[in-house]
């Protein structure tokens, strides 16, 4: 068989992380900074996060949202929502792992998401996940925390 199809495509991802600090308002008690980093795992299994401008197809990119309480009062009932961009697929890794997921940006449930197919409950593929959400009861005054999710470039 003459197989002419040669996968010679490389995916180059230009990763431009633009950090924009939210405009400070007197009433802005919460500030968030979003970053994207390439997840690199060496031969010993050690994981590091490297800002990159380009990456081949299949590159695992971690989106990390760092949020800070900038006032002297506690913040309650914090819900952080982090989308999974188009052309990227959630890998299933979320930090913290208590995140809930949604496939319609409206309804959230604990992971893994399930649905009924032919009378049986089956897992919904990660490729259909669209957003993750973290529910944080209390962020003390002047404290910071972070959430993250990993995606892979389609």
């Amino acid at each position, binding site marked *: *068989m*003459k*197989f*002419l*199809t*040669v*996968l*010679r*495509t*490389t*995916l*180059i*991802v*230009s*990763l*431009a*992380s*633009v*950090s*924009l*600090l*939210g405009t400070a308002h007197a*009433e*802005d*008690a*919460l*500030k*968030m900074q*979003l*970053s*994207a980093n390439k997840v690199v795992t060496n031969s010993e299994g050690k994981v590091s996060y490297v800002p990159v401008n*380009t990456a081949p*197809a299949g590159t695992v990119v971690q*989106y990390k*949202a760092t*949020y800070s309480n900038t*006032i002297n*009062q*506690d*913040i*309650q*009932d*914090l*819900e*952080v*929502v*982090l*989308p999974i*961009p*188009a*052309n*990227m697929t959630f890998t299933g890794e979320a930090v913290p792992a208590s995140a809930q997921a949604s*496939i*319609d940006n409206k309804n959230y449930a604990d992971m893994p998401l399930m649905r009924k197919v032919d009378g049986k409950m089956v897992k919904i593929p990660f*490729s*259909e996940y*669209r957003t993750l959400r973290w529910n944080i009861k209390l*962020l003390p005054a002047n404290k910071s925390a972070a959430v993250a999710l990993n995606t892979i*470039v*389609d």
Partner: protein
Amino acid sequence: MKSNTFNYSLLAVGVAAVLGISTTANAVETPTTTTGVDITNQATASYSVDGQTQPEAKSNVVKVSVSQQVSFSLTANNNDTAQGGTLNDDKNEKIAVTPNGFVLFEHTLKNTGNTTDTYDITIGATDPKYIQNESTVTFIVYAADGTTIVRQDTVTYTAGATVPSILEKGQSVKFTIKAKTSGNKGNETLPLELSVTSRNLTQSAAATKTLTNLDTSFTRLPTFGIFKTITNGLDLNDLTDTATYQVVVTNDGTLFSADAKNITIADVLPDGLVMAKELTASNITVSTGATKGTVATGNLGTKGFSITGVDLPVGQSITILFDVKQDQTVAITPAIAMGMINHVTVTDDLDEDAATTGDIVIDSTKSGTSENVSTFYPTDDVENLNGETPANKGDDSTVPLLTIQRKLTLTGPTIKEIAPVTGLTSTATAGQVTHATVITNTGKDVEGSKPGELTFTITDNDGTTPDAVNLVPGTVKVTYNPNDGTGVQAAQVIGAGTGGVYDINTVLTAGVKAGGTVTITYNVSANNAPLFNPVTSTDDANATFEDTIVTLIPGKEGAPTSTTVTDKTTVRGLVLVKKQAMAADCAATSTGIVGSFVTTDITGALPGECIIYQIQARNTSTTAAGFPITNVTIFDEFSKFSAKADFVVGSLTAINGVKAESTTNVTTTVATLAAQGTTTMQFKVKIKPGL
């Protein structure tokens, strides 16, 4: 939720009629095109302070510029190498299809880029002989691993419809077009085109956005040649006789040939005939790769047979031998038999699928009725009804019932007369007589075309030991007159075989045609044969004779009884009778006698008296069959009687002869003595004194 369903509900979208076909080779994969896409992301958060809900917080926007590479392949996957094609190129070439059957075209579309793409698949219909509403397209989408099935379905074939399909990178879709044909005949090529367009490439400046595959079907089917002959005719003189038919069905090789599988061969006997024996597998022989199938019907006494499940690869054949006999419901004559044609039918469901209609080939030696090869073959076949060898592939031949009604006559007993002495060999034939007997073929079959079929003997009535009258060895000849306008053929010497049997086939290998004659001639010789029996007789009624019996001995099937002819050879020749009588006086010129001429002794004669001798020579042969005798001389010497009598000079007379006296004898000569002719000589002698 991402939608990557092969959404055939969008069939109505983008209908594009395909009006032409490119015959040039197309690429099976597009060049890789690089396109850019920006992926942005932004986190949001809601929260409360002192129980008061605060405005939603938004993070900075993160933008990822992705450089996408777009390409795809479209391959034709039927194995068409046997037709000169290349596997997995852009063509499915000459994929076999039966008339009115289905052809399967297999293709694979693969996303060889690094991003999800939507493909518009356009199914062309470039030949109206593809029937859309009976055709389908089955697709299976595989994951990048090539084995995991992502989704699959079967949709209706719609010519010119554009079907979108979303494939993630590495995914592929294998789809099979099951196209129904209609009205296609053998050797026809029907094209069908398939094209796929990438939406990602459509949005780019890429030169190649569409790939096209060209499918062609090629209509194939077996071409049956049916050849029926009779190897053994039916003897009409024998109601129990059987005839043997031979049926040979061949899958003739053609430009559009195909193996035949599971065909049915049926034979229906004409009225008046039934199976003489049960048809079994032992009656069937096949060539390499062919199968005998199963005898479904064909018992003794039935009106034919049926054989099912016969496989005939291209070029192979099946031969069936079966016997029939009269059922006596029809008084078969040779004329009626000419109209009794036994037909054979071959039936083949071309795709072995009973659900497919219009694809059952029925070939028969009989035109019309159910035969339908003209629907399937490029040109109709020819049905020969007189046993001719088919001229072209697919032509058929059968033959009327061959009957045997042998009739022979043997005529012409001959009566010949022979001289007592003749030549005795085939090279010394002087005086030999030739008998002739005629064999006439008054039947309708050729006689003597096989050894032993037409023989004869020639025997003496007194045995075979040579005697005075004999058949001359080496003189037996046969002269053939076909009586067909070609004239009489030259006589041929025929030799006797074992037991003195002459076989016509040894000299006339093609036999004697109906209406033809063979004249048998042979010579008879005489070897000092006596004229009479007893030898002292002079009565023609006692002539010596020899009977020669010619016996015609037909052999083989349907042979008439033997007949004979008796030829007669009578020995004829010159008989000489001498008589005497007392003369009335001794005058030389007087011819008066006392009493009459006798062959017995005369007593009381006195010296000085005269006696008249009468000598008669007679040709005993008959005017009907006799022969002349030449140079006859009656001769009498005086010395025979001069001691006691004296010749009376001048007393010699002759009837039918030339007389002559000398001092020592008298003679009478005749140049030619015809059959039954006589010559008589008389002369007078005087008894000497003193006796």
